[in-house]
Each structure stands twice: as C-alpha cells, then as structure tokens.
C-alpha cells in the first residue's frame, strides 16, 4: 500500500482541488516506485527500500506545504463556497427546469397538437417523453442536492456550506410551479411558464426534499467517520 492516504486527506481538507491532488499523488507514487526499485537494485530489502524511499520523498508536512503554498491549486469550492454551494446550484436548478419546460412544450406540440393542455391522458411514446420531463421537474432539487453532496464529499467539506445549499435548493424547489396557457387560435401553439410561490404545503414538501437530499451525505459522513476510526 502506497503511503499517501494521509497526504491526500490533508490536501483535500485544506481545499486543494481534487484533480491536482490526484495528479500529485500519482506522480509521487511513480517517484516512490522508482526510488524503491533503485534501492532494491542496490541490494536493499523491500522493507528498507520502502522506508528509505519515504524519507527521500520528504515528510508529509513538507509535501503538503509545498502544495498549499500555491493558492492556485485551491478548488473553487474553497475560494468561493458561496458561489459553488449557493449560486451554482440555483443556476443548475434553473437549467433543469428550463429543459423540463422545453420537454413539456415540445411534447405538447408533437404528441397533443391542438389540445388545450398537455396535462391529459397520454399514450405510447408520449408517456415516456412527458415522463422524462416530469422526472426532471419533480426530481430537480434532489438531483442538484445530490450534486452538492458529491462535491462536498469529494472535497471533504464540513456541513456548513453544503447545508446552506441543501436548504436553498429545497426551498426554491418546492416553490416552483409550471403553468400552461391554451393556444389562443385553433391549432395554435400553447405557452408554458413557471412561477415561484410558497403554498401551505411547501414547508412539509421542502422538509421531505431536504431529507432526500441530505440522507446520502449523512450516510457518507458516517461511513467516513467509521473508516477513520477503524483505519
């Protein structure tokens, strides 16, 4: 086992972007292999060669500091957590809602031309087509929330910023409503629009969304805590 787990955790917790951590560790591992091979070739036992290679690579403190001294290796989540956990998820949510509206509008024109509303009994391919749009509309807050979870887990973030993102997404998600306007002229094209407003059931719905979003993150945190204790 290559001995860089501690360094990886330390760099990720300090906010170094995962791609830079991965590359650093890959090259350190290659370097370590070369040092071990060189020592073994010189007649050292495997254990001695590995110990000597570690010393030559440098202490974890020095290896970490060499990376942390350069701010350019920091992830955007560390540089601007408000943007990554607040603004970006709202834009992602808006993007998914836009696609859901486009699916609804195009499906209405393709499968139900001339009808007053797309919310009617569907058949065949239309069920699948509208189903995708419906899934995107209903699942958008949860999908975006899971995205935040993945980002936070990957970068070893504590709960503060991700939780703010989860709450924001859950609240925006439950206020979103899709409306359709029938075509003005016969066989014309109807309109699809969205608005955002609180309703009496919004808070309960938001709590349910929040639980669905946060559950995987809590499971991951508990898994990590158990692994840290056992490791």
């Amino acid at each position, binding site marked *: 086992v290559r001995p860089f787990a501690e360094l990886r955790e330390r760099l990720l917790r300090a906010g170094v972007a995962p791609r830079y951590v991965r590359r*650093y560790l*890959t090259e350190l591992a*290659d370097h370590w*292999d070369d040092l071990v091979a060189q020592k073994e070739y010189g007649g050292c036992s495997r254990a001695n060669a590995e110990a000597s290679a570690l010393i030559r690579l440098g202490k974890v403190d020095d*290896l970490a500091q060499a990376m942390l001294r350069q701010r350019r*290796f920091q992830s955007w989540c560390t540089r601007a957590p408000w943007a990554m956990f607040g603004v970006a998820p709202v834009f992602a949510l808006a993007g998914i809602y836009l696609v859901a509206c486009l699916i609804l509008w195009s499906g209405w024109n393709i499968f139900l031309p001339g009808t007053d509303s797309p919310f009617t009994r569907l058949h065949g391919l239309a069920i699948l087509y509208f189903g995708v749009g419906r899934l995107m509309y209903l699942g958008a807050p949860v999908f975006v929330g899971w995205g935040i979870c993945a980002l936070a887990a990957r970068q070893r973030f504590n709960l503060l910023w991700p939780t703010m993102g989860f709450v924001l997404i859950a609240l925006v998600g439950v206020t979103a409503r899709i409306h359709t306007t029938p075509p003005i002229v016969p066989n014309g094209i109807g309109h699809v629009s969205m608005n955002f407003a609180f309703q009496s059931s919004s808070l309960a719905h938001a709590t349910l969304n929040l639980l669905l979003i946060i559950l995987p993150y809590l499971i991951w945190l508990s898994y990590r805590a158990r692994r840290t204790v056992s490791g």
Partner: protein
Amino acid sequence: MKPRETNPNFMNGVPELLILGLLQQEEMYGYEIVQAISSRTDAVIAFGEGVVYPVLHGLEQEGALKSRRRTVNGRSRIYYSSTRMGTRRLTALTDNWTKLTAAIREMLTGGERREAIR
C-alpha cells in the same frame, strides 16, 4: 532511519531556475529531474524529492512548461519540457540570480578587504 538534512530556503525561487534550466535541454520526468539536480549540484542542494511536483505543476499552469504522458519500458510517466515562455522565464530568473550572487560575492569580498585594511 534519520530524516535527511534539507535546506528549506531552496524553495525560494531556486527550484524554478534549476528545473527550467534542466528542461531547456531535454524533456524529463520528475524522478529524472530530481536525480539530475542532485548529480549536477553534487547533492549540495538537498530537499524532499516530492516537493518538486508542486513546482512543476505550478510552472505548467503558468505556461512555462508543458507535459505529456509517455510509456517507456512499460511504465507510464509524465514528461515535462520547456516552452517559449519557460525560456523567457529562465532568462529573467538567471539575470536576477546572477545579479544577486554577484552582489553577495561583492559584499563578502568587500568585507574581507575591509578586514585586511584594519
């Protein structure tokens, strides 16, 4: 095993100079760069060998180096080479370093002269 003696001030601009100087001549991977620095400086400059990578990555991000993955003898490695910007950076660093060492030498020899006058 006893940790190696290192000189941490090595990190203040010198690694960039040495790395850019080495990579002007040929492309190298990290291990080769460290071995070349060690052999060409008679191991006077000592440092944890792993700290060379953040310097390489930083120089690459600035555009002074470029890298490519190559498989040699069944091992995949990342090779670095200098760019035009790297050459310009090396010239600037070399000028600075030359001025600095000249100034230090001047100060040291000047000091000796003063001692002789007394």
